[in-house]
C-alpha cells in the first residue's frame, strides 16, 4: 500500500515537474551548471579578501 502510494505520488510529482518547466528560473540541469561556472567569476569579485585571515578570526560567542 505504501509502495503504491509512493508510486502515485511520484507520478504526480513527475507530471508536475513537466508542467512546471516553463516557470522554472532555468531550464535544464546542464544550463544551471553552465550558469554556476559563469557565476564563479562574479562571486570572485564579491568574496571577502584574505580568506585565511578572515576565517581564522571569525569566532562567535556560543548562543542558544
Amino acid at each position, binding site marked *: 500500500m505504501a509502495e503504491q502510494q509512493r508510486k502515485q505520488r511520484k507520478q504526480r510529482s513527475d507530471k508536475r515537474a513537466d508542467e512546471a518547466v516553463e516557470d522554472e528560473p532555468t531550464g535544464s540541469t546542464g544550463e544551471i551548471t553552465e550558469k554556476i561556472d559563469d557565476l564563479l567569476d562574479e562571486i570572485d569579485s564579491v568574496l571577502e579578501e584574505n580568506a585565511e585571515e*578572515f576565517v581564522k578570526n571569525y569566532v*562567535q560567542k556560543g548562543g542558544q
Partner: protein
Amino acid sequence: MNPGRVHKVLGTETEFGITIRNQPDFNPVLASSRVVNAYAGTSSRIEWSFEDEAPGRDARGFGYEPSAAADFDTGLANTVLTNGARFYVDHAHPEYSSPECYDPLEAALYDKAGELVLARAARAVQAALPDGERLLIHKNNSDGKGNSYGAHENVLVSRRVPFGDLVAHLLGFLATRQVFTGSGKVGAENGRPRVPFQISQRADFFEEEVGLETTLKRPIVNTRDEPHADPGSYRRLHVIIGDATRSEVQTFVKLGSLAMFLAALEDGALGDPVLLADPVESVWRISHDPSLRHAVPLDGGGTITALDLQWRYLEAVAAHAEAEGADDIHRRVLDDWESILTDLEADPLSTADRLDWTAKLRLLEGYRDRDGLGWKDPKLRLLDLQYHDVEPARGLYDRLAAAGTMRRVFTDDEIERAADEPPERTRAYFRGRCIARFPGDVVAANWDSMIFDVGEDSLKRVPMMEPLRGGKDRVGDLIAAAGTAADLVKALGGD
C-alpha cells in the same frame, strides 16, 4: 477540524553571526546593541516587557529551573518593530523573532523579512564606522570552531496532546528532516568525526534527546514550556534543532512540514512512532552523509534511511491533510516536500535550486573543480560563511538567487513590505500597527500584552492572550478610527 487540534500559529527566531573586520577591539555584545539600536528609529524607545515570561518552565512538568532565567534578563537592546517582530540582543548576537504568523507561507515570508531587517540595520551602522572597518552579519548557526547559535521554530500545539507522545514522534522526524532543512557546512565540530562537508550546520551540537537547555548539551526536543498564550489550552513547541535557512522554498517546506506533522500528530493520524535506537548519534551520522545512503538503527532491530523515514511521515501527513481538506498553501507544502524527497533520492544536487545545503555544495564543488582546491583550503570555509551574509551585494545565496539559480517564493516587494507591516490575521497586527500609529504612547510590548501611557496616573495594559485575536478583522477599524492611543484604549475597554 478535530476539537483536539489547534490552529498552527507559528514563527521563527534567529540569532545572527556578527563581526566587524579590522576593528581591533571588536566586542560582539556592543556591536549587536548598535545594530539593534540603529535600526529601530522611533520604536527604539519601546521596550520589551519581561512580565509573564518564564523560559525556565518545563513541559515535562518539573516546574522552574532558576538558572535559565539568567539568559533573558540582560538589560541589553531590546525592542519591537512595526511588523510585530521582536529585535534584540541575545547571547552576543543580534536576534530577530518574527511576529506570530497564520500559516507556513506567511511565516517563511516574515523569516525572510528578518534578513532584510538585519541588512538594513547593518547598513545604518556601517555608515558610522571608520574607514576600513566592515560590519558583517551572517544568517548561519556556527563559526566552524565549536560555537553554535540558534534558529528556532515555534508552533502552537494543543495542551491535550501528552508531551510524551510529541517526543516519541518528534525524535525520528527531527533527526531525519535535516536532509531538506540543512544549510550545509564545511567540516565537523564539537568532537564529531572529521568530514569534508556535512548537511547541517547544527547537527554536531545535539547531545541529548530531551531537555530544557538551549546553550549546552542541546536536546533534540526542547521542553521549554512558555506558550505566550493561555497555558490551559496551548503549548508552544520550541524547536531548536533546525538550521537557519536562506532558501525561500526550503524555509517554507521546513515550517510547513513541521506544522502539518504536528496537526496530524494532534489528530492521532501518525500511527505508532518509528523509534530510532540512538536518536542523538543518528542526527550527526545522517548529517555527515551527503549521499543520503546511510541507514540508522531502529529500536528493536533493522535500519532506516532518513529519506525513507521522511517518506513515511509525508505519506501519513498527506493522507491526514487530504482527509481533512487542506487549503492551497498546505497542498503546496506537500507538493514541495514530495518533489524535494523525490529529487534527493534521484540526485541530491538536483535540489540545488531549492535547498541551501545542496546549493552550497554545488558552489564548493565548482570552486574545487576550477581552482583545484582541497577541502581544507580556507577559501572553501570562506564560501561557506559568505553564503549566509545578509547583505545582498555580498551574500552568496543572494548572488545565486539574483542569477536565477534559486527558486523564489516571494518577490522583493513582498519581503520589503513584510519588514515594515505586520501579518493581518494574528495579534501581531495589533502590536505592529499600534507601534506604527502611536510610537510615543507605547511604553512596552511583549508577545501577550501591550502597555500604553495615555497620560493618566497609571499605565494601561492591554492583554493579548489569544494569538488569533487582534488581527485586522477585529481591530483594524478601531486602530484606524482612533486619533490617539487614549482613544484606542478606551474603545477596547482596557483598564
